[in-house]
C-alpha cells in the first residue's frame, strides 16, 4: 500500500465517483487517488480488464479518468484543484457525429 512520505501541504477536497476524497495541494489526481487507496480507475477499452496508474509521468496513458465531464484525461498529469469531479471510465468513449 503506497503511503505519503511527506504529509505537508494544505489540504483540499475533490470527489471520486461522487464520494469525497482528501488531497494535498500539489498532488496530481493520480497521486491523491493512490494515497486514498483508490487504484481501479477505469477498464481497458480493448479487454475490459481494470487499469490504473503505471508510469506516473504522462507516457503510458493507463491512468485515464473522466474529469469534470471530460473523458480520457491523464490522472497523473492533472493537479488536483478544489472540487474536481473525477469518475471511473467504463469502456471506450462514444463520439457523436
Amino acid at each position, binding site marked *: 500500500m503506497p503511503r505519503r512520505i511527506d504529509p505537508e501541504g494544505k489540504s483540499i477536497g475533490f470527489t471520486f465517483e461522487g464520494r469525497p476524497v482528501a488531497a494535498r495541494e500539489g498532488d496530481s489526481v493520480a497521486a491523491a487517488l493512490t494515497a486514498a487507496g483508490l487504484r481501479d480507475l477505469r477498464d481497458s*477499452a*480493448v479487454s475490459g480488464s481494470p487499469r490504473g496508474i503505471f508510469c506516473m509521468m504522462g507516457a503510458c*496513458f493507463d491512468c*485515464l479518468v473522466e474529469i469534470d465531464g471530460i*473523458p*480520457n484525461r491523464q490522472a497523473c498529469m492533472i493537479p488536483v484543484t478544489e472540487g474536481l469531479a473525477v469518475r471511473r471510465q467504463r*469502456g*471506450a*468513449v*462514444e*463520439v*457523436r*457525429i
Partner: protein
Amino acid sequence: MSMNERAADTLVIGGGLVGAAVAYGLLRAGESVTVLDEGDVALRASRGNFGLVWVQSKGDKMHEYARWTRGSADLWPEFAGLLAQDGGIDPDYSKPGGIHFMLSEEDLEKKRAQLHRLHNSLEGQEYGAEIIDREQLDAMLPGLGPDVVGASWSPHDGHASPLRLMRGLHSAIAAKGGRYVADAKAEKVERDGSGYVVRTAKGAFRGDKVVLAAGHGNKWLAPSVGLDVPLRPEKGQIIVTERVRPLIPMPTHVMRQTAEGTIMVGDSHEDTGYSDASTSSVVSDIAKHAVRCFPALGQLRVVRTWGAVRVLSLDGFPIYQESATHPGAFSINCHSGVTLAGAHALALAPMIARGRLDASLDAFHSRRFEHATAH
C-alpha cells in the same frame, strides 16, 4: 574480426517490414536465414507508417505495379492467417474496402477519368475502384463534412496494424528458426567463394545469397554488389487520437480507426531530407483537413504525433532486382511495405529462394532510371 560459424542460405540486410517479410517468406520456402539489422538509431519507416493495405490509385503510370499491388492485397488474407499461425500475433488485417474523399467536382472528374483509363488498360481487373456520389458515401460512412462531394471506393482496400505486423513477422521468423541479429549494421558486403560475407560490429556473417532490404541504407550498400539504387527521403507526419467506440467503419486516405479504437490521421508529404521531426504547423494542417472531412474528429484528444521518413525511388515505384555481376545478390525497396508485405513474403521470397526473379518483375529493375538523375 571473428567469423560467425553458421552460414545461412540467405543473409537479409535490414529487419524493417521489407526485410522481415522477405526473410519470413524465405524461411517458409525452407531456407536458413539470418537477418542483420541496424540499431535504434536507424531511420525506420516501418515503425511510423499509417497501416493501409491500399490498392486504388496505385500504378496509374506503371501497370505492372497496379497488378503487383492488387496481387498483394489478394494474398493478404492468407498471409495474415499464416502469420497468426506461425508467430502467434494477428496483424489485425481487415478488408472492408477503402475510401478516397473528393473535395471538389473537378477532383471527382479527374479521378473518374483516371479510373476509366486504368479500367481500359487493365481490363477492369486491377483496382475495381469506382466513383461514388455523396448519397452513396453517406450510406457507407455517415458524418462527413459538407465539403466532401464524393469519393472513389475500392473493395480491395483494407488496413492492418503496422506495429503488430512488425512484431508478428519477427515472432514468425524466430518460430521458423530464423536468426535475427540487432545492432549489426552491415558495413561491407564482399564476395566469399560462391557466396557472400557481410561485416558488422557483431562479427562477420556468411550466406550463399544476400538480400539488401535496408530501406535508405540500400543506396550506399548496393554498389558493393554492382547495383544502383537511387532513393530519396520524404517525410510524413501522423496524428493518433484517444480510443473511442467504433466510429469509422472503413479506412480512408485521411483517417482510419484501429482495432484498439484509436483514430490515426495522416499524413503529409514533405521534402525535409532525412529529418523525422514532428512539427506543429504541419500537424495542425493535417488535423484541419481531417476535421473538414469528418467534423466529429474535432471532439477527440490527440495522444501522440510523429514523423517518419518514406523510402521512395525516383518514380515512387518499387525496385526489385538481382545483380548481373554478383549472382545471388538482390536489392528490394518499396514505398508501400505494409500493402506489399503479402507479395513480398508469398510471391517475391519464393523467387529469391529459387535464385532468380521472375521475368514478370523485369519492369521493377533500376535500369529504368538510367537516364534520370537523383534529386
